């Protein structure tokens, strides 16, 4: 944070930049929605954002990158990175599908659902624990440790799936995955619940404060008596757990588990965290920011299809948004520092 309040004679410009930096993600989202709205009117004389079908579709589309990005937000705030989440998601999806099929022999679909969800979450904890111990105890750099786990989770997931998708032979899971309550898709409701929990942990608990402290300055955190080792292990478990949730919801949505389910989403999920305002150097970021970041990516990808732009522009657009986000952050820090010094 800059010291705008503490220094009385800072220029207006800095205050303006502060505002821009703090709300840049919201601003982007707003600009995007307005742009697509105007575009849709100009091109097809129809609304984009006021069409509830579009809103619902974008909300559902956001679920996977958001859940992968959620745990990632915690990890990135602590100054780490978790590259294994994509395949942890796939592993969880495959295991959930298998256990669900196996559980149907007991005759109760609800029982097999409970078993499947618990096993899906349980299996997701494993890569998290190993990641955490590699990084906290053995001092392996997060990038390398989780890259190793990326490979292990990938291999195990494909082995369990025997290289193919694992269909679930039961209508219950599909009904949950594609059903709605009062017009709200179940997947979105479940994601909002997980979101609220993670937001609470990060912003309201002592543990949340510890993560910011570790990411800000790990030595200071140690001197302050924070159990950095345990907190780090818990971090990577949280990251794996949200990826596991993404995997379970994938299986529910498609009535099938696939090992490669999360692979194409990994980079989008990291982009969502960064666009949402987290710094890859640690110390800053919020859950709400990541939500906005994930929505921005989803709106771009959905909107460009809607206004019928050639598909490859999607990559360009997401790339430009990432670059601008980071630029705004850098300029704000630079100017803030100069202003405070002068």
């Amino acid at each position, binding site marked *: 944070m800059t010291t705008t309040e503490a220094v009385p004679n800072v220029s207006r410009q800095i205050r303006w930049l502060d505002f821009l930096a703090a709300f840049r993600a919201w601003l982007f989202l707003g600009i995007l929605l307005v742009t697509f709205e105007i575009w849709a009117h100009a091109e097809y004389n129809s609304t984009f954002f006021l*069409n509830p079908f579009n809103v619902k579709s974008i909300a559902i589309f956001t679920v996977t990158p958001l859940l992968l990005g959620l745990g990632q937000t915690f990890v990135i705030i602590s100054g780490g990175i978790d590259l294994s989440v994509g395949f942890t998601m796939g592993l969880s999806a495959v295991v959930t599908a298998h256990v669900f099929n196996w559980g149907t022999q007991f005759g109760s679909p609800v029982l097999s659902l409970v078993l499947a969800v618990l096993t899906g979450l349980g299996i997701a904890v494993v890569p998290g624990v190993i990641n955490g111990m590699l990084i906290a105890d053995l001092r392996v750099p997060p990038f390398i440790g989780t890259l190793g786990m990326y490979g292990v989770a990938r*291999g195990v997931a494909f082995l369990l799936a025997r290289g193919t998708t694992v269909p679930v032979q039961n209508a219950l899971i599909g009904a949950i995955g594609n059903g709605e309550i009062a017009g709200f898709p179940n997947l979105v409701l479940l994601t909002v619940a997980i979101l609220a929990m993670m937001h609470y942990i990060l912003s309201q608990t002592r543990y949340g404060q510890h993560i910011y402290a570790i990411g800000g300055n790990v030595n200071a955190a140690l001197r302050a008596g924070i159990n950095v080792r345990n907190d780090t292990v818990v971090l990577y478990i949280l990251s794996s757990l949200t990826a596991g949730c993404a995997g379970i919801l994938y299986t529910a949505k498609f009535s099938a588990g*696939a090992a490669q389910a999360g692979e*194409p989403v990994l980079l989008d999920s990291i982009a969502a965290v960064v666009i949402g305002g987290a710094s890859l150097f640690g110390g800053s970021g919020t859950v709400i920011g990541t939500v906005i970041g994930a929505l921005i990516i*989803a709106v771009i990808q959905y909107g460009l299809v*809607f206004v019928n732009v050639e598909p490859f522009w999607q990559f360009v657009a997401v790339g430009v948004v990432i670059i601008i986000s980071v630029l705004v952050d850098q300029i704000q820090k630079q100017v803030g520092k100069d202003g405070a010094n002068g």
Partner: protein
Amino acid sequence: MKRWISIFAALAALGLVVPSIIDVASAADKKYTVALIPGLTTDAFYITMHKGADAAAKVLGVTLVFQGAADFNPVTQVPVLNAIIGRKPDAILIAPTDKVQLVEPLKKAVDAGIPVLTVDTFIGDGHYQTGSGDADFPLSYIASDNILGGQIAARALAKAIGDKGKVYVSNVKPGISTTDQREQGFKDEMKKHPNISVLETQFNDDDANKAASQFQSVYARNPDLTGVFGANLFSAMGAANGVKQGGMNGKVKVVAFDAPTSIVGEIKSGNVDIAIAQHPAEIGYFGVVAAYAHLTGQSVPTLIGTGFTVIDKSNIDDPNVKRFIYSD
């Protein structure tokens, strides 16, 4: 190549090349090793191809080696190929992951005296032993005709939607020989149906979630959409989910290319209307047979085309159709 074999055989018969006499004498009980390198190992299509190859290998007494990379990418496939060349099998069956980038690496196999046949995908233009170009050296290309597959998909979809309305292709990404050809065949065939307009293709990077979202966006723009052609497994799975989520079952018809086990449930529940099954086991079987034929001095056709089966609700329980579902 063939001429050399006959010259060698002639020399051997004359007793002029002593070591080869022993070779020829033991040819009947020589156990050949054939290597099968799939486009990727983690795919029901290639796993089923492996089964077909295995069946042929058992009948012919051939040892089959199955090794490949985990993703469809020349960067990971070439090292596997090199390792296989190092093992010196008697023949290589490969699904090349790039039309151009695999040409030089496969030449090394031929230089090492190992005959090459390609399955499913091809190098160059797929026309072999023509004496033109530098990629005509494989002996044979054994595959389904993917352009034809796309045409069959288009015909089936046109029929299902009463020959009118808007449709689009949900595809992986450009540059893959097989999925490009399916799209091409589909679009070519649709030109013969003037009341059907084909919208812009959507590329989903093999992400079912993205394919589902793209479907919904295209549908939101085009409420008169009547059909989608999913050019591979995840494209079709995503489009089918988009239809289901929007409650458009029956209103928008989904044609899926490929038939993994999950397709059975999708067709029965009405999420997918039609599946075009290739015959990967047939590709594997005839790949091994062609390699064996060549190794035992027979000539081999340069192109072996395998068939398709159109699966829908009406025939999915028919055992003659069911056997074309890719098993795991």
